[in-house]
């Protein structure tokens, strides 16, 4: 009898999904592309005043990131449900918790990581200096995990439903609200010269850790329901 350890299962799913992302004609690129379009349009909409742009920059950035993550998670499980792989994976003992971990890694590598890397460049469009941008990308690293966990959970809840992507967005609103509140104020505090470690950024980090503990079990339960 053979069975696999969780770590090699995680790597197997990760490798498969990364190959699929690269063969999908740039599917891994959508989040970054959305993020770029959103910030560029926002910069145009706010007008040429650099002061006005700099005031709006933190909120614009976090909106762009939150929406990009939510969009790119919308069909995270849909394919595996439709082609039956999810059912086979769920029937394995290593099961859905490992699968959840793999999907979080896939999301982080394909959608989120490119955005965090690119953010200092795009923030210059919103009237910030490149060094300010680098600081902001560190705040992104603190807050973005919670947005990923929320997006993965809501995507699982909506898997197998018609217009599920839309539903996932609606469900994500109350979860994302506290993240955005503290993320934007942590970013503002950084830009006002209070540094990266502020009460706001600590709370933001705490929300990320809280979501890391809270969401996996719910996500797995939601996936099980989609298989019934």
């Amino acid at each position, binding site marked *: *009898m*053979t*069975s*696999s*350890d969780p770590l*090699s*299962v995680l*790597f*197997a*799913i990760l*490798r*498969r999904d990364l*190959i*699929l992302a690269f*063969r*999908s004609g740039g599917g891994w690129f959508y989040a970054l592309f959305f993020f770029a379009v959103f910030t560029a349009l926002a910069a145009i909409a706010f007008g040429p005043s650099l002061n006005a742009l700099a005031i709006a920059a933190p909120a614009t950035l976090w909106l762009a990131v939150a929406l990009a993550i939510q969009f790119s998670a919308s069909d995270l499980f849909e*394919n595996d449900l*439709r*082609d*039956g*792989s999810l*059912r*086979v*994976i*769920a*029937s*394995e*003992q*290593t099961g859905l918790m490992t699968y959840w971990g793999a999907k979080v890694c896939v999301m982080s590598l394909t959608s989120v990581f490119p955005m965090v890397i690119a953010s200092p460049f795009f923030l210059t469009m919103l009237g910030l200096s490149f060094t300010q941008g680098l600081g902001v990308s560190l705040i992104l690293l603190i807050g973005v995990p919670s947005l990923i966990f929320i997006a993965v959970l809501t995507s699982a809840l909506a898997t197998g439903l018609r217009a599920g992507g839309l539903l996932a967005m609606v469900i994500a609103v109350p979860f994302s609200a506290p993240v955005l509140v503290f993320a934007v104020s942590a970013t503002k505090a950084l830009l006002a010269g209070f540094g990266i470690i502020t009460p706001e950024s600590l709370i933001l980090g705490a929300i990320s850790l809280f979501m890391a503990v809270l969401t996996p079990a719910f996500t797995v339960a939601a996936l*099980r329901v989609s*298989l*019934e």
Partner: protein
Amino acid sequence: MEPFAHPISLEATDVGCDRVGEPVVRGVSFKLRPGNAIQLFGPNGSGKSSLLSMFAGLIEPAEGDLAWQHENEKSLKPLDGSLFFLGHETSLKLALTAEENLKFWADMYGVRKSLCEAKIRTALAVVGAAEFSGVRTMRLSAGQRRRIDLARAVIADRPVWLMDEPAAAIDTDGVTVISQMIGGHMKRGGIAIVATHDDLGPNFHRLELGR
């Protein structure tokens, strides 16, 4: 192929299962000893897939008892690494080649890296799909995809087979391949529960649902 080192039996006593809260199957009883197989049949919607999902541990029995027995241990859930599940969909990624798909499942089933390549080659030969090894699955027909998916059974190398319509979209030659595969599996002391309308041979206990 040598016999399984740890054969498994399954006993169902008056089990029933629900689908989205509605009762679909009631009062199923049987005993599967190593080397036995059951063919499930019945009209569409009679609960064949639900029953298979229940045996796979994906849904709880609504009533009755399921007992998996492995040597002297009994358990309510299938034992770790004992189960091979073939759904009515083909669990393959269209953008991957047949070989890449099977490599993924080999990793999932914990096949040792050194044996992997040889095992995939053997599996593809068994299902008569050796020439598709390097072909992306999207270029294959439904029946050819089904054969690649069946190759998973050889790779998983597990004593319990649960199969939902394995002969869907497959030609008569393919049906022969399936019944030979299951026959070989039974000779090794494996057990199988197969939902199908095709005739897979005389060695099956038949269990009719929806009556």
